[in-house]
């Protein structure tokens, strides 16, 4: 039998840390052939990136250690090579692209320099490297490729940076490309373009692609086969269609079930007075108009989802509504008063009613405060809410409400997982009994299964307490499940506003249609149909 391009056999990797040995991956095996795309699907902590790091020799040893197994490239064991031979493999035979191209490109050198370095490291001459870099920049469709070579990474957009990374990875025509969450940091339409580019390049070069992702949509879009990982173990593998249609392992079933975008859509009540009425809100940064007059109403217990790509002004809207920044025009009426021009005294009272949950709970919770301190701080600032004697009891209730246990009160944020931390942030927001919570990408950083739990929690709070939400998100399926109204924003303007059924089932504006078309579906057949439809309209 001919050798596979890549074969990982019984690989185990341990990390020896101060608190003990972590078995990051345990006895996993998979293989990949030329021209094939294999996806490694898993959530954070599943060890999905560890095996690829081992392939690239990127694991720091110590603390890491290859406990057992072998990785064969065309039948040759990478672990048995000399370090010089091993280095020669990187870049030439196997190349890698990463999740966050901004931090993975050296900020102080031009991208052209970094491209040429890849080529020169493996023996190309200076002028040859320059010509080849230019050819690749043209191939990945970077605008103005000659000028682009002399630019620095921060001068590109996120999607362009990922194109630079791809060009650099493909510089030496590798046999194997490893893509570690290559589109996670990108907007949906850019994600679709980058994935398409990867597929085209694979067809041209016949390379094998190993794609590591947490996103079922990405798997269904690009992969032929998939392996599912949980807690360092490989729990299931097979063709994408088989695994999606007929998952065997409980974890795979749970993952597929948790994928958003399949539930019933909300039908908002039509009656009732708005609690918040925003008219023509504007915001400038210098000469740049970040918000060009945004208007909408929100009733109690209602959710408006604000969707749009980066730079659309959705976070700016959140910040001026919470007066974290000052609006430069327009009004926002809250209980008969204009929020934008409210006096500091009124604003202080208003803070009780308006709360925010941020994207990254690791950063939005003070690491030196216990959970109890974090929650009760709200009552220190607003002592009229609750007498001090009742703080502990109420904090326990809040923790219970968000699905944590009262025993957690004495712990610090770092002792919790990402999803638990976001629950703490929600409990903190609830402590003030708010009428409106602004969630700025509040679940984007969480794993799919955790995401589903947090959304369920928010839904419960909405029903039980009548809290209204402004839900800022870029993930359309999530919005579909949770929102009453959807506001689509682009470049500081509202492109489309309507009930969730209107926007999802019958989008009026081309931009909304493009967003929906670019959104990936976890079902490989649905996704293939979407892709064909998209390509048909494009051509």
């Amino acid at each position: 039998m001919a050798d596979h391009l890549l074969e990982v056999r019984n690989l185990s990797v341990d990390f020896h840390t101060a608190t003990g040995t972590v078995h990051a991956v345990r006895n996993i095996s998979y293989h990949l052939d030329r021209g094939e795309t294999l996806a490694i699907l898993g959530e954070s902590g599943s060890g999905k990136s560890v095996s690829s790091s081992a392939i690239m020799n990127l694991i720091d040893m110590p603390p890491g250690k290859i406990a057992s197994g072998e990785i064969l490239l065309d039948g040759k064991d990478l672990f048995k090579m000399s370090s010089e031979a091993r280095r020669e493999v990187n870049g030439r035979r196997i190349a890698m692209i990463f999740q966050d191209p901004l931090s993975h490109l050296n900020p102080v050198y031009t991208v052209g320099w970094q491209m040429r370095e890849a080529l020169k490291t493996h023996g190309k001459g200076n002028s040859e490297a320059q010509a080849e870099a230019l050819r690749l920049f043209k191939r990945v469709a970077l605008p103005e490729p000659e000028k682009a070579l002399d630019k620095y990474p921060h001068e590109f957009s996120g999607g362009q940076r990922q194109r630079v990374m791809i060009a650099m990875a493909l510089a030496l025509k590798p046999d194997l490309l490893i893509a570690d969450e290559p589109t996670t940091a990108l907007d949906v339409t850019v994600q679709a373009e980058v994935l398409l580019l990867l597929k085209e390049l694979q067809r041209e070069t016949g390379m094998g692609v190993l794609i590591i992702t947490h996103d079922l949509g990405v798997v269904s879009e690009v992969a032929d086969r998939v392996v599912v990982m949980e807690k360092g173990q490989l729990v299931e593998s097979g063709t994408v269609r088989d695994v999606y249609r007929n998952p065997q392992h409980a974890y795979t079933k749970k993952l597929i079930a948790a994928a958003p975008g399949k539930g019933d859509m909300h039908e908002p009540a039509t009656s009732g007075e708005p609690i918040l009425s925003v008219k023509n809100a504007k915001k400038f940064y210098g000469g740049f108009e970040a918000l060009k007059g945004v208007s909408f109403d929100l009733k109690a217990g209602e959710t408006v989802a604000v969707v749009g790509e980066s730079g659309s002004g959705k976070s700016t809207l959140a910040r001026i509504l919470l007066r974290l920044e000052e609006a430069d025009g327009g009004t926002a009426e809250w209980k008969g008063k204009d929020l934008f021009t409210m006096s500091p005294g009124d604003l202080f009272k208003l803070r009780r009613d308006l709360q925010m949950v941020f994207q990254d709970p690791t950063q939005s919770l003070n690491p030196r405060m216990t959970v109890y301190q974090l929650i009760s701080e709200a009552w220190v600032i607003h002592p009229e809410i609750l007498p001090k004697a009742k703080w502990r009891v109420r904090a326990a209730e809040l923790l219970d409400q968000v699905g944590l246990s009262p025993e957690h009160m004495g712990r610090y944020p770092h002792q919790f997982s990402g999803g638990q931390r976001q629950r703490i942030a929600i409990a903190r927001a609830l402590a003030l009994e708010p009428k409106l919570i602004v969630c700025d990408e509040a679940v984007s950083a969480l794993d799919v299964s955790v995401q589903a739990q947090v959304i369920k929690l928010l839904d419960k709070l909405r029903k039980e307490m009548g809290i209204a939400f402004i839900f800022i998100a870029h993930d359309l399926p999530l919005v579909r499940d949770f929102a009453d109204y959807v506001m689509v924003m682009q470049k500081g303007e509202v492109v489309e506003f309507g009930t969730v059924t209107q926007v999802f089932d019958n989008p009026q504006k081309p931009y909304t249609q493009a967003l929906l078309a670019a959104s990936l579906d976890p079902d490989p057949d649905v996704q293939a149909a979407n892709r064909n439809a998209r390509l048909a309209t494009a051509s």
Partner: protein
Amino acid sequence: MLSFIRKRAFASLISLIGLLVMVFFLSRLTGDPASLFLPVEASAEMKAEFRALHGLDQPLLVQFGQYVGNVVTGDLGESLRKARPALDVVLEAFTWTLWLAVITMTLVTVCAIVVGSLAAFRTGGFFDRFSSMVSLIGASVPDFWLAIVAIVVFAIQLSWLPTSGTGSLSHWILPICVLFVRPFGIIVQVVRGSMISALSSAYVKTARAKGVKSGPIIFVHALRNAMLPVITVIGDQAASLLNGAVVIETIFGFPGVGKLMIDSILQRDFNVVLAAILVTAFAIFLMNLVIDMAYALLDPRIRY
């Protein structure tokens, strides 16, 4: 960039004026030059005459006004002791200090970057632990003690080097070596810390995935990124040398600006003290400007 330099120059001018005011009045608090210059038995008339000659009989504010007027026209007054323009005296001494500082800081920078980078590359290894120990000792040793020990060992017992003064290249060795130790110790620690975070950054991972060799990864990819905090500390350390390493210059009888300043203060040679302060302050302003330029040069994201 030009407007940035203008803004910086204006801010520095204000601090120079503040410095001038403070030093002028504070130095007048330290005593009367007339009683110090003239013999103890000098009569009151002689003292009055001396004061009149040097304008010291005028009210302080008038003296200050005259002084500022002169400074603006580039005249920093005469040295009371040396009967030469104070600026000439200071520039002569400052040249010595400048050379000492430039040579020392160049050596320190090169050595600290190499040692700190290599220590960071293999954190916890033998070289890292050894260099950490050496640099910690270097950063903590009192320099006057080290200077004296160095003189005792190398000049007196071994007779390899001259004890003090100037005149030959060998006169430079001990002062440079002693001045080297503390900034070296401090900068090695900063380079090491900064390099550890640079080497664990994502772009280093990319370089490894490209197959780049270890040497370029450390000294090309990581180092340039790690240099920003290092430059700040280098500037800080260089400033203290430019100010005149008072203690070391005194111990080694080195005719630099630090020694000049101490001597002039003791002798109430006000014009020299003021000129020395102005010159060193100006030099430090220039150096800080160079450091700001270096930031922009090293990091394309910084633009003024």
